[in-house]
C-alpha cells in the first residue's frame, strides 16, 4: 500500500488532505471530528486581532450554483473571519494540538497592516504549539473593505512587506495564502517569495455574484433586499486554481517554492491533479461543507489505490510530474494531427455531437436517416467539442494520424517532425527557411 505521509515545509501529516481555513475549522468541536474522520491537517479558521470579534451577517451567507440533480458545483459566501473571541480560539488550538500531535495544525491570520499587529498575534499563536501560520491575503469580501484580505493580496508590495514582518517575528513556517482576484498570480507569489515565505497556498475565493433573485431584483444571498459580491469556491473554481498553481510551479523566479493547492478539491483525483501540477499537498473546504468530513476516507483510499496501480510508493514520486508538460501555446506541436472517431457500439444516438458540430463548429459530423453519426475527416479540425458534449464517456475519441498519413482536411501528409508556431511560415516573426 502506498505511503501517503506528507511533509509540507516541515509540517508533517499522515496524509496530504488538509481542511482549508473556513467554517469546518472554526472550533475545536469541528476540528476534532475532522481528525477523527481522518483528515491529515487543518488550517484553523482565520483569526483577527484581539478585541471585540468581527460580526457576521445574520441572514443567509451562502449562494450556490447547481448541476444536474442539484449537485452543488459552486458555492459563494459572504462570511468574514472567525467571529469568536481570540483567546477562545487560541485555547482550543492549544488543546487540539496537544491531543492530536500527529496532525498538522496551521493557524490562519488576518490583522491590520502594521508590523505591531502581526507581531502581537504571532507571539500568541506560537504559544499554542501550532505547526505554522497561513497569512490570509485572500478574502475578497468584507475584510477587504477594511484594508485586509485581498486588499493586501492584490498589492505585491504589501504581500512582500507583511510576509517579511512575519518571518522576522516568528520561528514558525509562514504560508502565504493568495487571492485569485488579480490578473497575474505570479506577481503575488514572487512577492511572497521575496518576503521570505516558506510556501504559498492558493486559491482563496473568487469574486462573484452567484445569482439574482428575480422577484426582489437583488443579488443572492439576499440580506434585507440587498446583496454584495462574495467569494466563489467549489468544483467550479478548480480549473482557475489549477492554472494558477501551474503558473507558479513553472515560474523560474519561484521555482521550488512549496505550494499548498486549494480550490475545488472534491475527490482524490482532484488532489492528484493539483499535486501533479506541483502542489505539495491540498486543502479542502467546499467538498467537506457539502458532504461532511467522511469524504476524506474516499480521498485516502482513492489516492492510495491509484498510486498502487501506478507504482508510486510515496507522494513525491508524482508531485510536480506534470509541470514540465505545461507550456506556452506557441510551443504546441502543430504537426500533431488528430481526428474525432465515434465508437458506433457505444453511441446511443442522441445527436448532441451532431448539433454541436453542425451549429457551432465545423460541420464535420454526418447524420444518416437511421441516426448513424459519422465524422467527416475532411472537415474535422479535431476541436474536441463533440467529445466534450457526448454523454457517453469514451464514445468519441481522438485518433492521431500517423506521420505520412494524409490529412483529409488539408490534403497534405502529416509531417513526422515537431513543428510549432514559432517555426510556422504564417508567423510574421518567423524567418521561413527558403
Amino acid at each position, binding site marked *: 500500500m502506498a505511503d501517503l505521509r506528507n511533509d509540507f515545509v516541515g509540517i508533517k501529516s499522515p496524509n496530504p488532505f488538509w481542511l482549508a481555513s473556513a467554517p469546518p475549522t472554526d472550533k475545536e468541536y469541528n476540528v476534532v471530528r475532522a481528525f477523527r474522520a481522518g483528515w491529515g491537517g487543518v488550517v484553523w479558521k482565520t483569526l483577527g486581532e484581539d478585541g471585540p470579534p468581527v460580526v457576521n451577517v445574520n441572514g443567509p451567507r451562502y449562494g450556490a450554483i447547481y448541476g444536474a440533480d*442539484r449537485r452543488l458545483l459552486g458555492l459563494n459566501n459572504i462570511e468574514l473571519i472567525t467571529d469568536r473571541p481570540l483567546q477562545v480560539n487560541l485555547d482550543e488550538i492549544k488543546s487540539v494540538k496537544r491531543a492530536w500531535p500527529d496532525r498538522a495544525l496551521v493557524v490562519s491570520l488576518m490583522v491590520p497592516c502594521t508590523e505591531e499587529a502581526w507581531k502581537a498575534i504571532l507571539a500568541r499563536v506560537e504559544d499554542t504549539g501550532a505547526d505554522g501560520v497561513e497569512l490570509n491575503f485572500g478574502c475578497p469580501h468584507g475584510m477587504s473593505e477594511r484594508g485586509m484580505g485581498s486588499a493586501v493580496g492584490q498589492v505585491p508590495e504589501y504581500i512582500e512587506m507583511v510576509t517579511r514582518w512575519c518571518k522576522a517575528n516568528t520561528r514558525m513556517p509562514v504560508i502565504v495564502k493568495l487571492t485569485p482576484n488579480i490578473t497575474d498570480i505570479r506577481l503575488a507569489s514572487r512577492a511572497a517569495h521575496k518576503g521570505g515565505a516558506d510556501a504559498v497556498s492558493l486559491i482563496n475565493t473568487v469574486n462573484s455574484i452567484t445569482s439574482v433573485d428575480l422577484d426582489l431584483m437583488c443579488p443572492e444571498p439576499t440580506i434585507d433586499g440587498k446583496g454584495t459580491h462574495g467569494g466563489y469556491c467549489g468544483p467550479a473554481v478548480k480549473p482557475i486554481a489549477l492554472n494558477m498553481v501551474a503558473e507558479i510551479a513553472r515560474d523560474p523566479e519561484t521555482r521550488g517554492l512549496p505550494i499548498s493547492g486549494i480550490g475545488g478539491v472534491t475527490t482524490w483525483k482532484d488532489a492528484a491533479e493539483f499535486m501533479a501540477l506541483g502542489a505539495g499537498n491540498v486543502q479542502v473546504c467546499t467538498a467537506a461543507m457539502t458532504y461532511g468530513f467522511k469524504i476524506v476516507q474516499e480521498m485516502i483510499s482513492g489516492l492510495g489505490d491509484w498510486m498502487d496501480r501506478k507504482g508510486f510508493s510515496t507522494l513525491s514520486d508524482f508531485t510536480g510530474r506534470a509541470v514540465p508538460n505545461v507550456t506556452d501555446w506557441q510551443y504546441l506541436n502543430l504537426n500533431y494531427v488528430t481526428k474525432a472517431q465515434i465508437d458506433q457500439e457505444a453511441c446511443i444516438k442522441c445527436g448532441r455531437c451532431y448539433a454541436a458540430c453542425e451549429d457551432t463548429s465545423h460541420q464535420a459530423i454526418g447524420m444518416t436517416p437511421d441516426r448513424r453519426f459519422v465524422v467527416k475527416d475532411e472537415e474535422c479540425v479535431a476541436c474536441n467539442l463533440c467529445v466534450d458534449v457526448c*454523454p457517453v464517456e469514451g464514445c468519441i475519441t481522438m485518433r492521431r494520424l500517423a506521420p505520412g498519413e494524409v490529412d483529409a482536411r488539408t490534403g497534405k501528409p502529416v509531417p513526422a517532425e515537431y513543428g510549432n508556431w514559432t517555426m510556422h511560415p504564417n508567423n510574421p516573426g518567423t524567418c521561413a527557411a527558403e
Partner: protein
Amino acid sequence: MANTQLTPGVVSGRLAPEAYRDNFADKAPPLTAHEAAIAADRCYFCHDAPCVTACPTSIDIPLFIREIATGAPRAAARTILDQNILGGMCARVCPTEQLCEVVCVREVAEGRPVEIGRLQRYATDTLMAEGAHPFTRAEPTGRRVAVVGAGPAGLACAHRLAMKGHAVDLFDAKPKAGGLNEYGIAAYKTVNDFAQAEVEWLLGIGGIAVHNGKALGRDISLDGLRSDYDAVFLAIGLGGVNALRAEGEEKSHVRDAVDFIAELRQAEDLSSIAVGRNVVVIGGGMTAVDAAVQSKLLGAETVTIVYRRGREAMGASEEEQHLASSKGVRIVTGAAPLRILGEGAVEAVEFAYTKETEAGLDLTGETFRLKADQVFKAIGQSLEGAPEGLALSGRKIAVTGPGRTSLAGVWAGGDCAQGGDDLTVTAVAEGRDAAEDIHATLMGEG
C-alpha cells in the same frame, strides 16, 4: 351478511369501502416538483430526438423537458399543448413503453428511459391547475364546421378549428363528451373525473357548441350536416363489438367488456358494481386487460384472460401484461372458446388449445374448462353506424392524407378512420391534422 371475494355469483360490494379507494387510486401518481426536477435532468436534449419522431402528435419533448428543468413548467405545458391539446390525458394513458419512451436514447443505453409521460403530466397538471385556457381564438372566419363524436379525435379537431376562428358544433350520441376518455379508459389511469375536467378546460377556447345526446343516423344525418355546414368531421370511434361466435354466448353474465368498463367508469360508487367470483375475459388487447384488472380490483376471487394466440401477439403491451399479472390476473394464451356452459347463467367456459398453421389458427383436439360466473368479451371493437355513401377501407372509413374521405367536404379521423393505431394520442393527431386541412381548404376557397 356482507359479500366477500368468496361469495358465489355476480354480486356487488365484495370489498371493504377503503379497499375500493386504494385499489382505484392513481396508477402513476403525479411527480412532485422535486421528482420532476430530477427526472427532467436526465434528458439529454437530443438533436432530432427519436422520442419526438415516436410521438404520434410530435410533441417537442426535449424542449418541454428542458422547460421543466429550468423551472418553467407552464411554458412546457404550452409546448405540449401546441401539438396535443389532450396532452394531459395522453400523459396518463399513452402506452409510452411502446411510443416515446421505448426509443428514448436512455432506454436504449441503460434500459431506463426518461419518464416522458410523467413529466408531461407534471407540466400539463401545473398549467391546468391554474384554470386559465392558454390559447386564444383567431378572428371569426364566418365558417361553420360540424364535428361528430366528442372523443379525442373530435375534441382535438374542434379545438384546432375554434382556434382558427371557425364556429364548431360538436355532436355526440352519449350524454357526456370525452368518448372513451370518459367511458373507456381504465379508472385508475384517470382519477378524479379528469376526463370531464379536461373537456371543460379544452372548451375554454370558446367557439365550440357541444350537443350531447345527438346521434348521427338518428337525430342528425350526414346529408343534413353537409348542407348546413361548410365542412364535416366524423370521429365516431368504434361503437360496435365483435361477436364471439361461441355456443352459449347468449347466457346471462356474458357481456361485452366495453359495456362493463363504461358502467364502472360512470359509477358514483364502485361498491355498487357487481362482479363475478370467477371471471373469464376473452381477448388480448388493452380492453381485455382493463376489464380483467378492474374485475380483480372490484374483488373477484379469480380472473383469467384467455387469448387465442401467443403472448407476443397480444395487443396489450408487455407493461400492461405485467400490470395484470401483478394484480393477480392469470393470462392463458393459445386457447379459443368453444362453448359457454351453464343453466341460464354462465357456469364455465370450455376452451380448445390452438395451433398456428400455414392456413391460420387451428383448434387442436385438446380442451379444458374454466369455472366462470361472469365472462367478458373483449375481442375487438368495430365501426358501427358509418353513414351510407362513404367509401370504406377494410372495416374503417377510407381516408387519404389528413383524413379526407371519399365525400367532398367530409373528413374523418380517430378509431373510425383507416390508418394509425387505435390510441388516444393517434386520435388526437388525426383530429388536429384534419382541422388544419379543413382550415386550409375553407380559407383557400374564400
